[in-house]
């Protein structure tokens, strides 16, 4: 079976190369057909890999190294991509999937342009497949086959982590086609309204799953690592945040290109950078050059190959950009106080924010080259990334109402009035009954400001467009995303400033108080799962009339010889009461169990906000809601 998959992957490789050649020669139909064929072959190949995992075929080295007969079926399947080789196969599959989807989904009416975009996508797929087949093949056999497998890393045996990689890859790899569109547009020297219309849809197709994928990864870290927090500024997290920030900048810039034919060169540059940052992310995660709590399978040699790929793609695209960008049209005139000005500020801030993350992430490497071992932690990011973003969030509700070209001066009056409102909100929250720190009050006020701004914008536009539900979906998408951002800010600020944590060491029957909750250790027992056994604590938490039972576990997976922490979470309505079980300690001859107990207020609001941003991205992809104006239709070929 697996040999058939191997052959299919080779054929997909050959077809991708053909797609590249015919695409670049401008043969739209042929390139499209080849793209669909290549995807079909790779899908078959991927199915043979899944099949090997499902049937626990340990003669396949990948299965033997990452699976086990006792593992639950869902993790057998997820094990296919829960390792380096399998995840690269998924990367190839998604690359070809985007090629096939684009072959059927592009609507620019420009055959040569579309053919070239497919051609570039074909070459990107060729590179990915070459890396898969020649540097990290999942198709290798073992002889003799072992009787049992070595198990998937138990930390990865988790529902959120089963779908986290496919989501993240849809995002990362989605930007490959945005890259291809930019390259094809630059080859033609046409980054215009028609181009932007197409590029916006594919940017959203990458941005939405990337957002959801990052949220899933964060949620996994929140409950699986047992550290209570949801973001650690870990290099692997930063690796996914950087393309997200660039992608967010791109979504705002591509609108200027679509509506006003402005920012053409800048939009093309961002379209290229989003994918380059995605590969950089893969490099940082896979090469192990940085210390990370998430680095699972690292191999410096593979890292070098990824770096070569990054340099090759980067020099190709940036060279093309340097050659063609000066010839791009400038678009309609605008002043600083206009929607263009506002979106330029947005872009500047998002890109600078991405660069501060890049600097903080790579700085340990730079220092190491000078012989110093250092690391960069949360304080750095809180001092740089956060204030930079706060700047644009304050402005957002005001400037989103600005008109194209030149905004009404009344905007400035609104500015002043809104600013006063924000300060009032801040003072009320801080000085008022809540009794919270100025920083927290400011953060909550900022979040409410964003939600208020989104609702206000909806109302403002609804008057123009008639009824709220007849508004174009993209307006809804924008509003929901900005409201989601506001909810995220509120959740993040409340969680970060209001988190309560304590370490308890309890004998069975003992109790202690955390954040008003009286927590009693009722029992510790041993239980057994399909491929693990565990110590399970039964904690009863009481506050007033509320009673919660928390059952945190410490699991041990014998096949992998690895323990994991399974936290217990009780939703109180205002936050999560969260408990992680530690080790047994001998204190003055008495056996005590250690617990880390947290109260994380409003943490669900934070994830709800991010989910809203992701869903808004999907909604924004949907066409329709408003007919094209005659003036716009004329501009279409």
């Amino acid at each position, binding site marked *: 079976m697996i040999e058939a998959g191997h052959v299919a992957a080779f054929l997909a490789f050959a077809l991708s190369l053909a797609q590249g050649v015919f695409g670049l020669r401008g043969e739209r139909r042929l390139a499209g057909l080849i793209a669909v064929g290549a995807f079909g072959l790779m899908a078959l190949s991927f199915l043979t890999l899944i099949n090997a995992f499902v049937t626990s075929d340990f003669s396949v080295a990948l299965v033997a190294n990452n699976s086990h007969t006792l593992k639950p079926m869902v993790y057998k399947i997820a094990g296919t991509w829960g390792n380096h080789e399998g995840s690269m196969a998924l990367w190839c599959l998604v690359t070809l999937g985007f090629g096939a989807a684009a072959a059927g989904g592009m609507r620019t009416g420009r055959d040569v342009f579309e053919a070239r975009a497919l051609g570039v996508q074909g070459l990107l797929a060729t590179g990915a497949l070459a890396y898969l087949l020649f540097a990290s093949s999942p198709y290798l056999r073992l002889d003799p086959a072992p009787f049992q497998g070595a198990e998937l890393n138990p930390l990865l045996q988790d529902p959120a982590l089963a779908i986290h990689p496919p989501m993240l890859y849809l995002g990362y790899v989605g930007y490959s086609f945005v890259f291809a569109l930019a390259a094809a547009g630059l080859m033609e020297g046409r980054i215009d309204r028609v181009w932007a219309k197409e590029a916006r849809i594919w940017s959203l197709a990458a941005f939405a799953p990337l957002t959801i994928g990052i949220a899933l990864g964060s949620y996994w870290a929140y409950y699986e690592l047992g*550290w209570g927090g949801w973001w650690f500024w870990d290099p692997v997290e930063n690796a996914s945040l950087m393309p997200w920030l660039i992608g967010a900048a791109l979504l705002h810039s591509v609108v200027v290109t679509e509506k006003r034919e402005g920012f053409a060169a800048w939009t093309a540059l961002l379209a290229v950078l989003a994918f380059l940052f995605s590969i950089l992310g893969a490099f940082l995660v896979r090469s192990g050059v940085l*210390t990370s709590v998430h680095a699972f399978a690292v191999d410096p040699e593979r890292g070098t190959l990824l770096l070569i790929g990054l340099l090759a793609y980067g020099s190709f695209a940036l060279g093309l950009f340097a050659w063609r960008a000066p010839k791009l049209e400038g678009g309609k005139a605008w002043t600083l106080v206009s929607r263009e000005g506002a979106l330029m500020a947005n872009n500047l801030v998002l890109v600078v924010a991405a660069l501060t993350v890049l600097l903080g992430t790579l700085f340990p490497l730079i220092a190491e080259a000078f012989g110093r071992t*250092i*690391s960069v932690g949360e304080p750095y990011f809180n001092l740089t990334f956060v204030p930079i973003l706060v700047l644009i969030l304050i402005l957002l509700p005001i400037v989103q109402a600005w008109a194209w070209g030149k905004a009404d001066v009344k905007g400035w009056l609104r500015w002043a009035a809104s600013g006063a409102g924000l300060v009032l909100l801040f003072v009320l929250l801080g000085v008022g009954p809540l009794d919270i720190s100025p920083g927290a009050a400011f953060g909550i006020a900022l979040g409410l400001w964003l939600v208020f701004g989104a609702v206000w914008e909806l109302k403002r536009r609804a008057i123009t467009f008639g009824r709220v539900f007849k508004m174009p979906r993209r307006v809804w998408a924008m509003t929901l995303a900005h409201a989601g951002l506001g909810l995220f800010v509120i959740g993040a600020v409340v969680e970060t400033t209001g988190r309560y944590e304590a*370490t308890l060491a309890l004998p069975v029957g003992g109790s202690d108080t955390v954040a008003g909750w009286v927590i009693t250790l009722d029992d510790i027992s041993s239980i057994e799962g399909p491929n693990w056994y565990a110590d399970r604590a039964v904690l009863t938490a009481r506050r007033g009339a509320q009673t919660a039972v928390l059952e945190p576990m410490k699991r041990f997976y014998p096949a992998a010889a*690895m323990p994991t922490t399974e936290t217990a979470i009780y939703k109180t309505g205002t936050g999560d009461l969260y408990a*992680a079980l530690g080790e047994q300690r001998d*204190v003055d001859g008495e056996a005590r169990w250690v617990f880390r107990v947290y109260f994380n207020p409003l943490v669900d609001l934070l994830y709800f906000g991010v989910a809203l941003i992701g869903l808004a991205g999907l909604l924004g992809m949907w066409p329709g809601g408003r007919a094209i104006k005659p003036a716009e239709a004329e501009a279409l070929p």
Partner: protein
Amino acid sequence: MLAAAVLAYFALRENANLFYTPEVLAEKGLPRAGKEVKVGGWVEPGTLTYADGGATMQFTVIDNSPNTITVRFTGVAPDLFREGQGVVATGSFDAAGQFTAKQLLAKHDENYQPRELKPLEAGG
């Protein structure tokens, strides 16, 4: 843009965490009290004790030099924390040289260990 660069420069200067092994500490002296740094080495066997009714652990970190660092940590030890094994702690020193950790990382397995410890292993 320039403001961001200046901000990043100062933030990095203030907040890049230097890595101390017992030997490096003896060489360079104590960092400023309260400044976040990392310390690493092996947990010296037989030095692990508990305080605060069991919530706080205290142990000694050693390397190939005769020097040591005493680390206090309130919380749950990482799953693979063992006496004799490698550990990296993030936290700060007080003026008396007592290190209080807010996070501990232990060596995971043969494939993964804190990068900072690699030179130590090679040397030892």
